[in-house]
Every structure is written in C-alpha cells, then in structure tokens.
C-alpha cells in the first residue's frame, strides 16, 4: 500500500519537474522524485540501495543547483506537437503492452527459480565471512561486475576532467589574440 502512495507521489513530482517553467523549481521537484525512490527502496527492504540513492541524489542536487543558478533556458513550445504527442502515446501503449506480457512471466517475489542464488543465500556468510549478503555477493561472488562498474566510473571521471579543463581554453584565447 505504501509503495503505491510513494509511486503516485513520484509521478506527480516528475510531472511538476517536466512542466515547470523555472529551472530551480524543476531541480527541486527532481530531488523530490529521488527522495521518493529512496523511500521506496527502504520499503522494499533494500537499505544498501536506499543509502546509495539518497547520497547520490544530494550530490546531484548540489551540482545541478550550482550549474543552473543564474541561467535560464529558452522554452520551445510550438512545433509539431500533434505528431510528437501521437508518437509518444503510441510508444507508451506499446511499451505497457509488452511490459504487462513480460511481468506475467516473472516468478513470485522471494521465490527465485535459479538454484545459484539459493546457494549464495544459504552459504554466503560461511564462505565469505561477511554478514551483509549484498556486499558478499557484489564484492566476492560477482566481483568482476563491480570491476566493470569501477572502470566505467573511472573513464567518466577522466572524460569530464578532459572536457572541462582550463589550460586548453587559455591556450586557445592566447592564440586568437
């Protein structure tokens, strides 16, 4: 029941974030969506994900407010709105149809079909020594997944630093003068 209320709240907040004219209020509504997502993770009994979502949301909101504080983007409201609206609703209907068909095939919550995960759940603590089963799986049984995530994240850091460095800009302006 609570999860439905939180989903409704998130949908309302995201509609506000999309439709709002002001960039700052849009960012605030987006942070409300992230808070709702964190609460949803807590209700679904995933505290690891809830902590990560909350902390990353705070950092993203700080960066977005810092980036959008004195800037105003022009809004384009005219154009081919009829074609865009029809295409969007067709895509949503198609997606909902296939999602409904796929969700009916899923096993029940808490009853996994694979025997590998049952082995992890029963023997994970004995084999790894970690009492947090999520950490035991992500950093011991499935450690190469985390290595791939870390590689992607490190490539992201290096890419951002290369794109927004200051030295290249100064060099360019000196050349033009």
């Amino acid at each position, binding site marked *: 029941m609570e999860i439905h209320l939180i989903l409704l709240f998130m949908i309302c907040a995201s509609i506000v974030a999309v439709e709002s004219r002001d960039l700052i209020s849009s960012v605030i509504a987006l942070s409300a969506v992230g808070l709702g997502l964190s609460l949803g993770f807590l209700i679904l009994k995933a505290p690891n994900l809830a902590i990560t979502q909350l902390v990353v949301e705070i950092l993203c909101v700080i960066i977005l407010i810092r*980036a959008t504080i004195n800037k105003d983007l022009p809004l384009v409201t005219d154009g081919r709105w009829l074609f865009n609206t029809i295409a969007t609703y067709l895509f949503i209907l198609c997606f909902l149809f296939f999602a409904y068909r796929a969700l009916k095939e899923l096993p029940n919550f808490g009853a996994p079909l694979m025997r590998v995960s049952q082995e992890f759940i029963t023997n994970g603590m004995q084999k790894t020594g*970690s009492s947090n089963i999520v*950490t035991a799986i992500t950093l*011991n049984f499935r450690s190469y997944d985390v290595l791939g995530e870390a590689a992607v994240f490190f490539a992201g850091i290096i890419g951002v630093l290369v794109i927004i*460095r200051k030295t290249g800009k100064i060099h360019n302006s000196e050349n033009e003068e």
Partner: protein
Amino acid sequence: MSLIVKTITRLTVGLILIYGIYVVLQGHISPGGGFPGGIIIALSFIHLLLAFGKDAVLRKLNQAKGVFLASLGAAVFLGIVLGGFMGRQKPLLSQDHFALFSAGRILLCDIAISVMVGTGFFVIFLALVLLNQGEED
C-alpha cells in the same frame, strides 16, 4: 558565506567525515559500503568548499592530488581483483563473523572503491567550480 554558516560548518564537517569513514568500514557488517561512504566523504569536502570558498579547500586537496588519489584507488582495486584472478585462494583477512577487520578481501575492496569514488566526485565538482570562476574573470 555568513558567520552562521561558517560556525555550523566548522561544527558539523568533522562529524560528516567520521560518518563517511564509518559507512565505509562497516560495509561488510551493516548496510553501506564503498560507494555511499566515498560520496559522504566527498560531500564533507564539498560542504567545506561551499562555506569557506575554494582557497580553504585547495590547500588541503587540490586537483592534481585528487586525480592521483582516484587513480591510486582504481589501481589498488584492480590489483586486488587481479590477485584473485591469478589464483590467490588464501583470504587476505580473517574470516570471523561480525568483526571489524574480517571478511577476506571485501573490506580492502571497499576502502579502495571509497577512495576512488570520493576523490573522483570531489574532483569533478572542483573542476566545475574552477571552470565557472574562469568564465567570470
């Protein structure tokens, strides 16, 4: 920033840093781990930067040092994982349950990930701030 913000920051920034280290070190016992703990550590530095300006923070951790620390964390994590791949079967720490320094190589992986994530996010934020400063000049 105003005097109130500076005083509150001076009181709370150490607590935020200690909480981040706690979340990193308890990652194999209670919910938490390297990723959220590293971001909490980065948030304490960002808190300091927003309150006291960039000069107070650049004395402690500048951009070159941050990039070096992020690369060091990534290299240590890669070394631990490659060590497991090369067939080192003996766990690096003890296998006792609910002890702080336990759980094989999970704690070492957590510390390496937290160093990489924390300094990486802080360096990105610092680069954005320095870029904005350059445009105003």
